[in-house]
């Protein structure tokens, strides 16, 4: 059973995340943690839009906040988001990873340690190398992995890197990802 979904996105990620969250049915309540590379000033308005236009409580993760159903927690700007064994989020100001803080690899790798096979990792559009290593760790730990198809990604590089590195379980067009999440978590 999937306990938490972790999602990573970079360039073009705002639209992709919004598309997925809006397509998820109310009955889908699995907790989600998201790293989105985004300018520091844009995140709060983006989160309030998601809050208003999806079924979920969407917020910045707070330090040692419990993972909760129906809740989507984003990494705050300039902090890495980590998942701990006891189903809490923790934050870190450690060095940038892949030139990024927050880094998708950090969320994915810590999620793989904390959740093993109970983790679903989803990597979306982006134009850098972040996320590929982390997705590989999720897969190695027995979790399930989805990568957005490069053809439907605003930037192909990040999905392509991940596909090369870890042969994800599913490569899906953006419009099909929500339905697959429901199926996997059922």
């Amino acid at each position: 059973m999937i306990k938490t979904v972790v999602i990573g996105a970079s360039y073009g990620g705002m639209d992709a995340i919004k598309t997925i969250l809006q397509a998820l049915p109310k009955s889908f309540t699995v907790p989600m943690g998201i790293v989105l590379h985004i300018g520091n000033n844009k995140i709060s308005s983006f989160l309030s839009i998601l809050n208003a236009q999806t079924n979920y409580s969407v917020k910045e993760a707070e330090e040692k906040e419990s993972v909760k159903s129906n809740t989507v927690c984003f990494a705050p700007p300039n902090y890495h988001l980590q998942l701990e064994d006891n189903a809490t989020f923790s934050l870190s100001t450690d060095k940038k990873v892949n030139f990024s803080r927050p880094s998708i690899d950090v969320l994915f790798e810590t999620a793989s340690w904390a959740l093993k096979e109970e983790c679903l990792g989803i990597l979306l559009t982006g134009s850098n190398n972040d996320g590929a290593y982390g997705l590989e760790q999720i897969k190695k730990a027995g979790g399930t992995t989805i990568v957005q198809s490069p053809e439907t990604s605003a930037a192909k590089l990040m999905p392509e890197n991940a596909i090369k590195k870890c042969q994800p379980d599913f490569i899906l067009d953006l419009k099909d990802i929500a339905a697959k999440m429901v199926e996997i978590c059922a």
Partner: protein
Amino acid sequence: MNLNNIDTQDIELDLLLRAVYMKYGYDFRNYSKAHLKRRINQRLMLSDLNSISELQHKLLWDKSFFRFFLQDLSINVTEMFRDPEFYASFRKKVIPDLKTYPHIKVWHAGCSTGEEVYSLAIIFKEENLLNRTQIYATDFNKGVLETAKQGIYNKKEMDLYEQNYADAGGTGKLKDYYTSKYGSVLFDKSLTKNVVFADHNLVTDGVFAEVNLVFCRNVLIYFDKTLQSKVLDLFSNSLAKRGFLCLGTKESLKFTGYDENYSAVDKKLKIYKKTQLTK
């Protein structure tokens, strides 16, 4: 309980932390596990070790190796006037209160390489408080304390710090406080005239002194809840009546049970004031 479900690396990690505590007296057992695993895995890679058990063997038998490990687990990412809006708020909301004191004692806990010690000292200087302020700057890592004491930093960082300083409400120019040489800058020694840099471990050492301000930013996030509350207890016991507690902007008293003992001076920027005499 099915014992087979316990991850082997988790067993190794548990044993390693116990071994380090028994051998060297440093207690990392209540650090955030995600943080520990990330740092330790990096060490395995750097030192070409295959497992945490191998690392444990090396640490137990090679004392000189321990300092690398200590460095690995230190929190060493910092900058001057980090989160400038915090410093701006500190100036506006805490300084006026401190000005009413004849003497001010400050405990800067987990000061790392000292960038924020100099930031604080500059604000106190600009507010004419530095001469009657005693700052204790502590860290468990003697190496970073040495850097802090020297006050020499990379010149490359200074553009960012100058901007931070301006955003934090600095009244002059940051460059007035340092001299440059060979790609480095040296901060004015008069800033640290009343600063004592001292070795103190938040996990295993006790109350340091009675102070009017505890400054501990982005340290607690590396601890688990148990250790967080132990350290907050230490801070509560160190703070004088109506003393101030400044945490990192993502740290909060919210999930700790300590929020009742403090009132928020700036809720968003995590500046608190002690409201009770005792915990």
